[in-house]
């Protein structure tokens, strides 16, 4: 359990994190979202004990970060921004060093090392200096380092930054496969990631919390939520007639595409579908929209910037 209460961090005049409060329960996989400079990394640095808060408290599993930082550091696995690692060491040496620090010994240590190396597929680079690795591999070494002691709390600052689509998929699968009683906090710019792995999303901007809820609720805020997009073979002249349907708030045209927006979150797919059938329009495709994450994100954070 992580309890963050009225956390504030300022650097001189600049307030990076402003009165931020939230709880995270075991089993929560939190997607921590926000534009660059929103205070995501700063918050993570305070939870992991790297930065001292200007005011407010951080509690991890009943330990206070001010009073008992070592105990908290033992519980947390942390991937800092940019995945820093000792470049002169080989991957094997580096992971061995981290395992030592994490207090792993003997058979447990070799078993954990083996499990992590195979889960993150580091076998091919195990004996190469970290300095010589590609960006993607460096990131994965950072990830391996964070999970080596099977931590109760996992904090990952942009874990998929710089990875190719296959590697991203792999990292997401890894996070999904973590046991269900862990606390995971992931910061990311990639919104699809949140729907893919998180069961909770927190959006901050300028250090202020703007949204805290499930990714589904977040999608519900989108004007594309329950909208229907139709791809026409040829755009019919009377397409405007769609606006006349019950509970349709409006339409938007793009080339041969029309998006029909729903009013009050009602499901309008059937009505639209029947209307198209009645009009005998030729369509190439028709699908229901779930909502567009980037749309909501822009709307929320732009609002935040204007306050």
């Amino acid at each position, binding site marked *: 359990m992580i309890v963050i209460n009225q956390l504030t961090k300022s650097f001189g005049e600049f307030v990076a994190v402003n009165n931020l409060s939230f709880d995270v329960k075991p089993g929560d996989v939190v997607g921590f979202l926000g534009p660059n400079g929103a205070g995501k990394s700063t918050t993570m640095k305070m939870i992991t004990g790297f930065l001292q808060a200007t005011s407010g408290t951080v509690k991890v599993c009943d330990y206070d970060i001010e009073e008992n930082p070592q105990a908290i550091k033992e519980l947390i696995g942390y991937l800092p921004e940019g995945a*820093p690692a000792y470049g002169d060491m080989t991957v094997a040496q580096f992971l061995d060093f981290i395992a030592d620090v994490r207090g792993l010994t003997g058979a447990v240590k070799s078993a954990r090392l083996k499990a992590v190396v195979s889960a993150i597929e580091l076998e091919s680079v195990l004996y190469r200096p970290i300095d010589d690795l590609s960006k993607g591999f460096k990131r994965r070494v950072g990830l391996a380092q964070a999970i080596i002691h099977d931590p109760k709390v996992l904090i990952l600052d942009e874990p998929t930054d710089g990875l190719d689509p296959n590697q991203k998929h792999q990292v997401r699968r890894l996070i999904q496969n973590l046991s269900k009683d862990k606390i995971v906090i992931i910061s990311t710019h990639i919104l699809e990631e949140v729907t893919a792995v998180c069961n909770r999303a927190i959006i901050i901007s300028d250090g202020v919390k703007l949204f805290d809820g499930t990714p589904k609720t977040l999608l519900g805020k989108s004007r594309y939520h329950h909208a229907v997009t139709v791809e026409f073979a040829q755009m019919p002249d009377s397409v405007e007639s769609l606006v006349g349907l019950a509970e349709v708030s409006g339409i938007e045209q793009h080339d041969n595409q029309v998006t029909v927006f729903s009013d009050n979150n009602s499901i309008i797919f059937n009505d639209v579908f029947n209307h198209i059938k009645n009009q005998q329009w030729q369509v190439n495709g028709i699908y229901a929209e779930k909502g567009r994450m980037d749309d909501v994100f822009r709307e929320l954070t732009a609002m935040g910037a204007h306050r």
Partner: protein
Amino acid sequence: MNMTHIIFKREFSSFFSTPVAYVFIAIFLIMSGVFTFYMGNFYERGQADLLPFFNFHPWLYLFLVPAMAMRTWSEERKSGTIELLMTLPITTAQAMVGKFLAAWSILGLSLILTFPLWIMVNYLGAPDNGVIFAAYIGSWLMAGAFLSIGICMSALSKSQVVAFILAVVVCFLFVLSGTALVLDVFKGWVPGILLDTIASLSFLQHFEAISKGVIALKDVGYFVILIAAWLYAGLVIIEQKKAQ
């Protein structure tokens, strides 16, 4: 395993995986040879001792030790690994001591590797081996003091070059603080007792006292306290500056 020990192990092997240790040891051995035989007139003096060898150590350390110490914290801060280190369950003090001991061991190793000189002087004459042993201990302690200054300066700046220059300047002041060059600046306007204090901070004085064969508590204590004080200062600095 103890955290200090783990840090020590990592730092020590890192000295060898980056060629720092090899370069340092090679240069140290070559330079001390050059100093002993050419500038110290080892043969011409006709005395069976290692005085010409030890006399140049402060000057050798003045440049070599800051060069070795400069990366200690600068590199951690520059590459961002300090965030990793400080969020592992390691205290800053453990990291500091581990780093210091690793570099100090390399210095000790360099000194040990000058053993052919000791054998040679025993072959050529009958030196007082007790004095030589004391001088080795004194030299190692003094190297530790240089090192702790270098590590503290490395905590101050992300730039290794700045750390190096600062360390050389501070070390230079400590080497010379008993000489006229430094004392003349203070003479006349500082009270005598402060002048004595400044004079007594000299590396040279304490090192010479030990290398005469007397391992006195006062001289050993001086170096030990100095090491502890500079490392503590470095600790305070790095706690303040780690995130900048």
